[in-house]
């Protein structure tokens, strides 16, 4: 029989990480992510993993990257102010192709903002927060069970693509409790860490599978532009490196995309949502459908690389796309770009720290489509 459990979002994140084999956590306390850290502090030592309370978020992400190079499946969790401090490390993880997971439970910002109020204001920062062109994968979740699954997905994608993966939660999801079926061991796929094969000819540590250091292949790891053995380069080899590490993610948008599509076939309007807003969006779309309105729902769980293809392939019946977000307009710009003028795209933002309601979302759709069935 499947185990049912009343779980908090942050708990699901911590247990999802452990399910995925996370054996290193370093972090610095911050609302609304602290429970993830507290659970890791309790669970990791008794499972033989390593927990470290670092002196700040810069040290946290740096230790996570160091641990990954030591061979660990490593993660950290934080919220806006700490996420800002981690950008330096995220860039280093990107250029060194270090698999690691960074959870950002978003709170209202900028700055200290409203620590206990939810927002989706870190979307662009998650994608573009560190300087320079760079690869990163950004995931999100809307339900507690989702948080568990997307945390496992984050570890898998980090491993597969050798990139830092950012999982965006928010204050509401982090702290809400839901009864979920906890995945059984083996139920979700877990992609293991590659290990150097004993006795095999050493292969270069960059451009292929990840090799932890200290297992007999001596190379260098650096944030400088580097060759396949980690030694500094300039000019065309630097360009080749940048194009390779960016392309390895951007060209795989289809494979990396996690999403749910509902009622799209005959839809005249589509609500595009992600994260905690998927909940009122689902209710809104269900309500409108029950009234006979042809409204579809697209729930994005991968925000980056942006799944352009979903929008290119929208049915031609779609004339209106609504993007409700807890910000003043972030992902909507990507949606607009991907829709490319084939339908009217509109943003619905809420930034008082509270969640959009199904009525607000449904109301906006009706304002635009009318009650016409």
């Amino acid at each position, binding site marked *: 029989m499947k185990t049912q459990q009343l779980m908090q979002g942050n708990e699901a994140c911590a247990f999802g990480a452990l399910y995925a084999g996370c*054996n*290193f956590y*370093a972090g610095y306390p911050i609302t609304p992510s602290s429970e993830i850290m507290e659970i890791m502090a309790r669970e990791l*030592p*008794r*499972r*033989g*993993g*390593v927990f*470290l309370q*670092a*002196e*700040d978020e*810069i*040290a*946290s992400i*740096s*230790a*996570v*990257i*160091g*641990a*990954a*190079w*030591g*061979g*660990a499946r*490593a993660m950290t969790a934080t919220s806006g102010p700490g996420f800002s401090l981690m950008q*330096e*490390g995220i860039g*280093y993880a990107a250029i060194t192709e270090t698999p690691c997971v960074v959870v950002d439970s978003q709170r209202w910002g900028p700055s200290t903002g409203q620590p206990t109020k939810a927002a989706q204001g870190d979307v662009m920062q998650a994608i573009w927060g560190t300087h320079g062109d760079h690869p990163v994968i950004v995931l999100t979740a809307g339900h507690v069970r989702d948080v568990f699954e997307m945390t496992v997905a984050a570890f898998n994608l980090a491993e597969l693509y050798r990139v830092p993966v950012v999982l965006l939660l928010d204050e509401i999801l982090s702290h809400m409790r839901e009864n979920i079926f906890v995945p059984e061991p083996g139920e979700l796929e877990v992609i293991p860490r590659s290990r150097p094969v004993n006795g095999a000819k050493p292969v270069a540590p960059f451009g292929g599978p990840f090799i932890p*250091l*200290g*297992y*007999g292949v*001596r*190379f*260098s*790891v*650096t*944030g*400088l532009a580097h060759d396949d053995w*980690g*030694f*500094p380069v300039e000019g065309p080899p630097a360009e080749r490196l940048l194009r390779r590490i960016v392309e390895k993610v951007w060209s795989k948008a289809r494979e990396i995309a996690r999403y749910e599509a509902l009622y799209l076939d005959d839809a005249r309007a589509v609500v595009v949502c992600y994260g905690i807003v998927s909940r009122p969006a689902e209710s809104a779309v269900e309500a409108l459908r029950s009234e006979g309105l042809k409204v579809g729902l697209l729930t994005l769980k991968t925000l980056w690389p942006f799944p352009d293809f979903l929008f290119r392939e929208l049915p031609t019946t779609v004339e209106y796309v609504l993007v409700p977000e807890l910000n003043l307009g972030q992902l909507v710009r990507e949606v607009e770009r991907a829709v490319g003028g084939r339908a009217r795209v509109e943003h619905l933002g809420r930034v008082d720290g509270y969640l959009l309601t199904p009525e607000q979302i449904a109301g906006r759709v009706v304002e635009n489509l009318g009650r016409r069935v």
Partner: protein
Amino acid sequence: MLIHTAAEYDRYLRTQKLPTVWCPGCGNGIILKAFIRAVAALNLSQDEVVVVGGIGCSGRTPFFLDFNSVHTTHGRALAFATGIKLVRPELTVAVVMGDGDSVAIGGNHFIHACRRNIDLTAIIFNNMIYGQTGGQLAPTTLPGRRTTTSMWGNIEPPFDIVRLALGAGAGFVARGTVFDFEQLSEILGQALAFKGFAVVEVLTTCPTYFGRYNSNDDPYDMLHGLKDRTDPNEATMAEKLPVGIFRNEPRPEYTELYRQLVEKLGGGGQR
């Protein structure tokens, strides 16, 4: 094994990466050599040593050494090294940093590493200036000295890295100079063998910037200047800067305490 010949040193160098990026006359090469000698004397295998560098002229050291090399971000070398050592306590981890790297931007990580006592060896190349970025003021620049950002003479008091490390609780604290190679390699050896967080401040020379802006850029004179400024026989912190080992007192080490904790909780299986 005590090594002497060029061929013996070459074994530990990535000779195809030479010459180093350092200016002619820079003191850093002497530290590089003393480090190799210390590692060789301890018979450490190259595969079990990790050298982690920060950003700066000094931070480039790992590229020339044939160990597991990690070149990190400015100020964070100790934090990266912390992650490595926590998951791989069997490796010997040395961290090479500049003075700006370790006690300006990395000051927070430095004092916490001293306090936390993870078995790392921090080697601080103190040239009293920011070399890599062209000779700006460092938190170790002495009063009155000129740099590109203190051209009228420095009015800030400097950190004494040894006292800082002692105050923050490091178990092994020493100071050497590039003038005294023998003493330096001896200190580095003891630091590497020390079980716990070890700090070695190495007074080194930057003729290109510090020397030039302070009216003597002759590398030989600068080396002798270090000799005149320091006193190996002095146990107290008097007029001259004392050099030698100021503390060598092992205390419970973090990765060992952590291992005991895991054992107590019965979690030894994973890792």
